[in-house]
């Protein structure tokens, strides 16, 4: 068992594991909402649009101060999300098209700004994450964001469920659907800011939706989807980190790979919605069908059934 406990003796590794667990839980928990609201593209767009936010924050603050990513990122992500809404409502374009345009433009402007102002950001770290390089401030920010997002969404669980299930009916019950959607989006952006340094822009979406998609294949319960997603995210993060430590590979990729393996297992072997189950069940229910007419075959007695 030494190979399993050995990493915990290093302070940097312990720290990464705690961060990974937290970020994994946060992502997995929020992922339930992302999957049920079908906002994967939105989530991907928002994560990319954080880059110009960081650049703007850097320029305004005059350096890589801790609040720069937070403030700038929040601003840039909201600008993209609301901009996409504005374009889709004021033209014939649909929201996914508008989002696609805005986030690539936004990401490009981030790249350009970083070059122009010689901002000392490693694009590789930005894209793929660097969980070992987290500062104390980053850690505090991750804790702070988790402690806001999870309790808030847990408190709003019921109205959010009604909104996700059917926004029209929710509105007819007096729920403020637009406000809730906005809160959800803010939570999404905060979660991304928290997990960005640890696992990077490219892998973020995987951390968000893979755990929730896994639970979605396993059960038919909304609360289980949220908390179960959190647990799977946490487990995937920690095991992925250990893997990356053992094999000396990038952490973000290892985390998402672990999550991918868990998802594949659920996809194949889920006792409810697994692929194997579908294949195995594919036999004819001929006898069962005939058993509905005790005694006589249907051709003989065309009488009414209830």
């Amino acid at each position: 068992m030494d190979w399993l406990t050995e990493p915990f003796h290093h302070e940097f590794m312990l720290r990464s594991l705690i961060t990974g667990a937290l970020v994994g839980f946060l992502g997995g928990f929020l992922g339930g909402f992302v999957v049920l609201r079908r906002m994967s593209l939105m989530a991907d767009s928002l994560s990319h649009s954080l880059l110009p936010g960081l650049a703007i924050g850097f320029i305004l603050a005059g350096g890589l101060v801790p609040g720069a990513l937070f403030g700038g990122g929040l601003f840039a992500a909201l600008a993209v999300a609301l901009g996409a809404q504005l374009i889709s409502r004021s033209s014939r374009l649909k929201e996914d098209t508008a989002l696609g345009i805005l986030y690539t433009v936004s990401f490009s402007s981030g790249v350009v700004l970083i070059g122009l102002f010689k901002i000392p950001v490693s694009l590789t770290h930005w894209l793929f994450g660097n969980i070992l390089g987290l500062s104390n401030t980053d850690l505090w920010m991750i804790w702070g964001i988790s402690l806001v997002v999870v309790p808030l969404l847990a408190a709003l669980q019921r109205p959010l469920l009604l909104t996700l299930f059917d926004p029209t009916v929710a509105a007819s019950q007096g729920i403020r659907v637009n406000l809730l959607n906005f809160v959800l989006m803010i939570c999404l952006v905060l979660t991304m800011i928290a997990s960005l340094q640890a696992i990077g822009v490219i892998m973020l979406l995987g951390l968000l939706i893979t755990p929730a998609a896994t639970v979605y294949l396993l059960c038919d319960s909304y609360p289980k989807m949220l908390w179960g997603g959190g647990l799977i995210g946490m487990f995937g993060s920690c095991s992925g980190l250990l893997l990356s430590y053992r094999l000396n590979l990038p952490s973000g990729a290892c985390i998402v790979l672990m999550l991918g393996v868990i998802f594949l297992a659920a996809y194949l072997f889920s006792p409810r919605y697994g692929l194997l189950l579908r294949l195995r069940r594919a036999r004819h229910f001929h006898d069962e069908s005939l058993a509905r007419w005790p005694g006589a075959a249907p051709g003989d007695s065309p009488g009414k059934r209830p």
Partner: protein
Amino acid sequence: MIQRASLNTAHGLAVSDLTVSYNRIPALHHIAFEVGCGQCVALLGPNGAGKSTLLKALAGLLPRETGRIAFHGREVQGATQDFAYLPQREAIDWDFPTTVRGLVEMGRYLRVGWWRGYGREDEKAVDEAIAAMQLAPLAQRQISALSGGQQQRAFLARALAQQAHVFLLDEPFTGLDKPTQDNLKQLLRSLRDQGKLIIASHHDLASVRELFDQVILLNGELIAAGPIAEAFTDANLHQTYDTPTFAGPAAHHHHHGHGHH
């Protein structure tokens, strides 16, 4: 023929001077009617006549340009728990992770509050709603594993658990076979007999007499409203269906049929 609303109906719904527009084109124009509780009311009219618009306006989903809605003598502003709007089946994500029971429990959420657990009273209301809609054997099924008629009953059960008094249904009988339609008819009648008010848009004129007690005939304007014997006349039907719907000035007429999105 058209009953003018006086807004003092103690046991029923009173609508007066209701106008709802999309982009300044009125879909409903100064609608006024009164209907007592314990009725099944058919909302009739050609496509684009404002049937869905009226249902949504009653449910508080659309802003009113003018008009007042009163229920049990009290003025209704926006959305209310007393009214339950049942969406068309196509509007639902049937793969949503919830069972029939979970769906019916949603009807209690706003009564229970955000945090509180379910009390015995809530459990009882859910059980009763499930039993009343004959869903007990199906309660643990995921909602996509239901037939069309069962899905409709699940939504009715949710409205029952919500303790709604007015049920607003968008084309509930569309696409149902005869036995399922009869079953739904019986269930709606049992709700009616408990004093609920059922208002359902409907397009099959042949089945109106069998399924409903009252009609509201719409074509942008209210043509007639009242008991079938009085309002469901050939003359009124002719007026309702043989008049083109209004979709704005002549240039906009190709929107015909989409006025109720």
